[in-house]
């Protein structure tokens, strides 16, 4: 039990940070005591990453105070964070594959005498550090590229110890691990904390936080909604409310009941992708919104991408309006009237330096062309129609997509498929990086498209979003469809229960 007896290590008060006018942090408080595991919980885009980067010296806060062992400090760069004793383990581990474990651990503070590396000393100290972490069996001269993700994390932790870290920040360390490896990670974390080192553990997996966390802070939309709650005394329901905290009824438009004789537009039968998911079956009728709910890594995005043909299914079929599509062919899917809005809008969806209208017509410019010669005037007009219909801002079709907000970039993708005349729309995280106000607009658009007869499949890591948008929900866990329910018959804790039972089985 962590209480006031433990020395206060880090005290962050009212931290703010904005990027180019976007407020990423609007007032975050965080107090970390020596020897505790302090979990930071928040949805995607809540500001967790920005908080970490501010503490590790990558970003400078605009406002607020950082007290380190009671003294106000400025963390001007990553080196000064390390000098204080704050080490960070990023999700995409910053180890160098081509170097040995020992070389990685002493990277940037190499042991040397008169410029000559003391390889033997480095190896010996590396062995000590690894032993302390319960991995004394790994030879320090092993090349890091040959290690598993789990062992790379150990290397990263050993590096933090080599710097005499008093606080180690771990950014979703379990995301790349299987359940056995997670157990081992927790064991190592407990060893660290028993020697007085504090761990800030970032995750959105509630069940892990229950297992490893002492106290918990919640961030929502860049603001602290709770700081330093005791994990054992806070019910999951409260955590979810603190994390999402919105008035569900006001945000989600009413669903229009789907007539039972509405034609089936999308039929997915026994779809399998080895290593990702198995035997996914469902149909979507015209006007229906089907949601896939599940945790990160459950296979939801892979299912969507496989339906679209961006990944080649191991077996199973996808049919649009009764016609089976060629497996693994995006072109076949698009030709059949399917549209897809990918999870990573900027890297997978848009050509950021091209104007809005060319992004809108990326799937259809050939249709406006005659004999291979483009008709940009017709393209601009089609884009203008959609800009007006979707209230896309700015309304100038020649503005580069890069200059638009997340919500308006999402509208470009919707516009693209509207111009195409899509009947089946697959949306992966349609509101990621979209602020709350614009979310309601995106939700309204999705419902409007459904009302006009489009079949829609939505994937979101926000369970609330899936439940609020969808008519029917498929709960996905570890690549299996755990349950299919009408949206009205299931709530968030049911979904979480199903997912946890599914992963325990």
């Amino acid at each position, binding site marked *: 039990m962590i209480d006031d007896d433990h020395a206060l290590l880090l005290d962050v008060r009212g931290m703010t940070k904005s990027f180019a006018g976007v407020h990423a942090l609007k007032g975050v408080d965080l107090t970390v005591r020596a020897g505790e595991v302090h979990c930071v919980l928040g949805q995607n885009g809540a500001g967790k990453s*920005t908080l970490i980067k501010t503490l590790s010296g990558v970003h400078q806060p605009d406002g607020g105070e950082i007290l380190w062992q009671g003294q106000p400090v400025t963390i001007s760069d990553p080196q000064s964070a390390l000098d204080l004793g704050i080490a960070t383990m990023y999700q995409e581990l910053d180890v160098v594959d081509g170097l040995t474990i020992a070389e990685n651990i002493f990277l940037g503070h190499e042991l040397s005498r008169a410029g000559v590396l003391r390889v033997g000393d480095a190896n010996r100290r590396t062995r000590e550090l690894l032993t302390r972490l319960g991995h004394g069996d790994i030879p320090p001269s092993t090349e890091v590229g040959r290690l598993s993700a789990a062992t790379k994390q150990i290397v990263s932790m050993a590096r933090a110890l080599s710097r005499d870290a008093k606080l180690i920040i771990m950014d979703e360390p379990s995301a790349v691990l299987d359940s056995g490896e997670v157990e081992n990670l927790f064991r190592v974390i407990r060893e660290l904390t028993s020697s007085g080192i504090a761990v800030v553990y970032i995750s959105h997996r509630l069940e892990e936080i229950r297992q490893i966390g002492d106290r918990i802070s919640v961030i929502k939309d860049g603001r602290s909604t709770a700081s330093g709650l005791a994990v054992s005394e806070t019910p999951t329901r409260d955590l979810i409310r603190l994390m999402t905290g919105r008035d569900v009824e006001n945000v989600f438009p009413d669903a229009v009941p789907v007539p039972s004789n509405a034609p089936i537009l999308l039929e997915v039968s026994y779809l399998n992708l080895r290593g990702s998911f198995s035997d996914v079956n469902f149909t979507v009728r015209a006007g229906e919104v089907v949601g896939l709910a599940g945790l990160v890594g459950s296979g939801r995005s892979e299912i969507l991408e496989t339906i679209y043909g961006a990944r080649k299914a191991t077996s199973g079929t996808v049919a649009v309006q009764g016609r089976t599509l060629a497996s693994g062919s995006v072109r076949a*899917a698009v030709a059949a009237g399917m549209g897809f809005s990918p999870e990573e809008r900027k890297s997978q969806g848009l050509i950021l330096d091209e104007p809005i209208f060319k992004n809108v017509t990326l799937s259809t410019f050939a249709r406006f062309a005659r004999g291979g010669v483009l008709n940009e005037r017709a393209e601009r007009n089609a884009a203008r129609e959609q800009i007006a219909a979707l*209230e896309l801002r700015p309304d100038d079709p020649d503005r580069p997509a890069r200059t638009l907000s997340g919500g308006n970039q999402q509208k470009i993708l919707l516009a693209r498929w509207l111009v195409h005349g899509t009947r089946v729309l697959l949306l992966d995280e349609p509101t990621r990086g979209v602020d709350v106000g614009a979310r309601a607009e995106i939700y309204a658009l999705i419902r409007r*498209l459904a009302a006009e*007869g489009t079949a829609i499949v939505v994937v979101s890591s926000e369970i609330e979003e899936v439940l609020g948008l969808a008519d029917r929900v498929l709960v996905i866990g570890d690549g299996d469809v755990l349950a299919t329910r009408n949206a009205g018959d299931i709530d968030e804790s049911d979904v979480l229960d199903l997912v946890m039972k599914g992963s325990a089985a």
Partner: protein
Amino acid sequence: MSEQKTTILTDAEPLPGASQQSDRPSALKRFLGGSAGRNLGLVIALLVLIIIGTVTAGDRFADINNVLTIIRYASIVGVISIGMTFVITTGGIDLSVGSVMGLATVVASLSAVQLASAQFSWLLMIVIALLVGAAAGFVNGMIIAYGRVVAFMATLAMLVGARGLAELISGRRTQIVANNEFLDIVRANVLGVPVLIWIFAVVAIAGWFLLNRTTFGRRTVAIGGNAEASRLAGINVKRHLVYVYTLSGLTAGIAAVMMLGRTTAGTSTHGTLVELDVIAAVVVGGTLLSGGRGTIVGTVLGVLIFATLINVFTQNNLDTSVQAIAKGLIIVVAVLLQQRFATRGPSSGRK
């Protein structure tokens, strides 16, 4: 597919005066960063070179025949540069163009010699040169697109391989092209302008049209801008890359025909290091090496700048080593200026 949906949606109320965002760069910077501004910079650079040439070499430089010499010299590199502009716009590179051109001159001239008695048609020789170029480009494209080999390595292999093949086929001997009909046509003047320059002009105009006005050009820019987004939008990225590298090979084939006409010989050493001149001209012209932006007008200006530079140096009897240093400087300065005026900022992501 229902076109109907689009029309329903337009019934929505019109936008209330959407506000312009304040993060627009200043008008001057926008102009200099835009394509017109970039080309203007190149025109100014060219004018400066012309003034230097006129001042230092006077009548010899400003003579119409000298001007035609400059452009004629530029035309072979120029034709290849047009194909290279497409390749670089996709974010790729083609290092093999010089040796592919050499190979094409060898194969075409050898066929001409071997079939001379059988009334070899000069047209067939041209076709063979073009086919050799296109075939080499096609192989490049297949290896890059379907074999997923980095363009730099795939075309480097072709650079070495094609040169070796050319040496093997020719036995390192130079084949003289003796077909007078062919030579008369390639070395003729039309309206006072050499045919080589006409070929360059036609290829440049066709290239401009292809890049800016056709679906082919749109796909090229889109793939260079974001290959994954293009794929997910339904563009056949791999097939298009094969087309683009084939196009690049084809321009090397056209250049081979021009080379055969100009030098009256086919040899495996034709085109050695030409790829460097070509890439320099394209990049100085304003096409981004990272892909997504290509400019044919810029490429033509880049080619002319280098050709004029060489001519100015030659007219003043300056050492070729000094020429090389000046070329190096121009490349660096041009790229530095490009970065200064490039409108694309650092990625404005929140994380």
